[in-house]
């Protein structure tokens, strides 16, 4: 709050600004350019105005139908994994051992899925879920459950969701664990003297203290699941049919598969806009929460 005003600080930020602008603004301008045009190959482009955008938001056209369907699927997916990963992450963080070598062991194992390349995550679950050679698929099938993620929509969804839970719950757990670690012991001692129940300790001390990290966890998980591409693409390829085709998969299909640059660009812009808005909402909530809490906390 007591920062000095110094516009020369721009020189320190300039390298970052230039590098990110090179990678962000130039490509985005290409996208805007494409989104207004139509092409019939041979690098000939024709002005199309806002035609693509109109088509995109109209569910009766092919493009609009595909966009809105994949958007819907993606929202359901994001909400489902948030509903599982956030509570599970909190429970795992609360279950972490207190001290000793087990802490380091648990941290390393928890972080392990985060460091696996995304296509390998897909490969792992592709293998693990196969009824013929995978442990999960084999076990389910031998228990008499008809499980096949290649042909059954519901099984494909189940596989993609459990894969994401496997891949990313650790992130939520590690964030919550870090939030819990920052609670001073005195709080717990005070609670004990007051005779607070276990549940009261959770709702009155631990949850408020985790408030900030939880917000970040929800933001990151929402964003990353909203732009998920590689893992479901490797496992299901967007199928069976279109049942696990999320927005990014649809976008890559249109852009790199059909080379429909105009449509893809319009879709990209709308997609980016949604993300920007959600990001801004979270950022505002986060900075407001930080400003409110600062005076009482002394800058923890």
């Amino acid at each position, binding site marked *: 709050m007591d920062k000095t005003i110094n516009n020369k600080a721009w020189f320190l930020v300039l390298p970052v600004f230039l590098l990110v602008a090179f990678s962000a603004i130039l490509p985005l301008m290409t996208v805007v350019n494409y989104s207004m045009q139509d092409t019939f190959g041979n690098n000939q482009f024709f002005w199309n105005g806002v035609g693509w955008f109109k088509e995109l938001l109209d569910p009766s056209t092919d493009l609009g139908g595909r966009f809105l369907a994949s958007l819907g699927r993606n929202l359901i997916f994001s909400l489902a994994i948030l509903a599982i990963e956030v509570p599970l992450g909190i429970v795992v963080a609360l279950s972490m051992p207190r001290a000793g070598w087990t802490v380091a062991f648990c941290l390393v194992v928890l972080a392990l899925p985060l460091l696996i*390349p995304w296509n390998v995550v897909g490969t792992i679950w592709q293998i693990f879920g196969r009824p013929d050679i995978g442990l999960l698929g084999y076990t389910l099938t031998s228990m008499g459950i008809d499980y096949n993620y290649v042909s059954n929509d519901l099984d494909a969804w189940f596989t993609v969701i459990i894969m994401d839970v496997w891949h990313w719950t650790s992130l939520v757990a590690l964030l919550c664990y870090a939030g819990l670690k920052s609670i001073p012991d005195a709080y717990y001692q005070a609670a004990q003297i007051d005779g607070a129940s276990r549940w009261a300790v959770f709702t009155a001390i*631990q949850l408020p203290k985790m408030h900030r990290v939880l917000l970040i966890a929800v933001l990151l998980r929402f964003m990353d699941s909203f732009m998920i591409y590689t893992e479901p693409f490797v496992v299901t390829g967007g199928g069976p049919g279109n049942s696990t085709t999320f927005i990014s998969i649809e976008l*890559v299909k249109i852009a790199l598969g059909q080379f429909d640059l105009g449509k893809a660009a319009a879709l990209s812009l709308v997609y980016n806009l949604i993300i920007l808005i959600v990001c801004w909402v979270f950022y505002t909530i986060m900075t407001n929460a930080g400003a409110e809490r600062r005076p009482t906390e002394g800058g923890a």
Partner: protein
Amino acid sequence: MNTIPGRRIIISLFLVFLLLPIYWLVNMSFKTNNEIVTTMTLWPHQPTIANYMRIFTDESWYSGYINSLKYVILNTVISILVALPAAYAFSRYRFLGDKHLFFWLLSNRMAPAAVYALPFFNLYSAIGLFDTPWAVALAHCIFNIPLAVWILEGFVSSVPREIDETAFLDGYSFPRFFAKILVPLIASGIGVAAFFCFMFSWVELLLARTLTSVDAKPISAVMTRTVSASGMDWGLLAAAGVLTIIPGALVIWFVRNYIARGFALGRV
């Protein structure tokens, strides 16, 4: 008091859930294809290292690992070098448009890679960097630089401002203060930031695959070759997968004591 009942069982079950699919991959990588396809075995009955030997002896395989490591390391170095001064600026000064700039940077961390795949392809082809590690390293900057700035800003802010002032009074020039005093003070922060840059660059596939074709092909793209006319080479695929997990596991082991601290700042 601050734990929950049955926590040992919960954490053990969760760790088993995390490790089981990885174990299955390791298990498969030591089997022959015949054993994988014909029988269901919980451990390799005829253990073989043929799958690994093929990767280590075939240049088109192991060069994939080298290519991946090249751009990951390049990207981590670039991100940290440019993020350090910016983090200092954001932490110490207010300047024209600082808040908007910070938000714009963060919003790029959230930008979907699928949006940028095609424009990046055009851009890097146009400037002649296509199919080099530089193209991927620069492309990954779009999400790693904002991340590094975000993490490092937290660590710089934890250094008391009096230290800067004392150093300048003692006649330190700005670059010298930066190199001799600030960087050693936030060394653990640089470690944490480097860890996350390494991680996000290592796991990304879509951009890395789009921006390379032959010479700089990353391992994740090479892995798709295991599909051949004679069907899937599962053992080879599993072995390649296991080898991609190892660099990450090594990095985690080295920074295990800092991970919690990095997350504590809530800036991932």
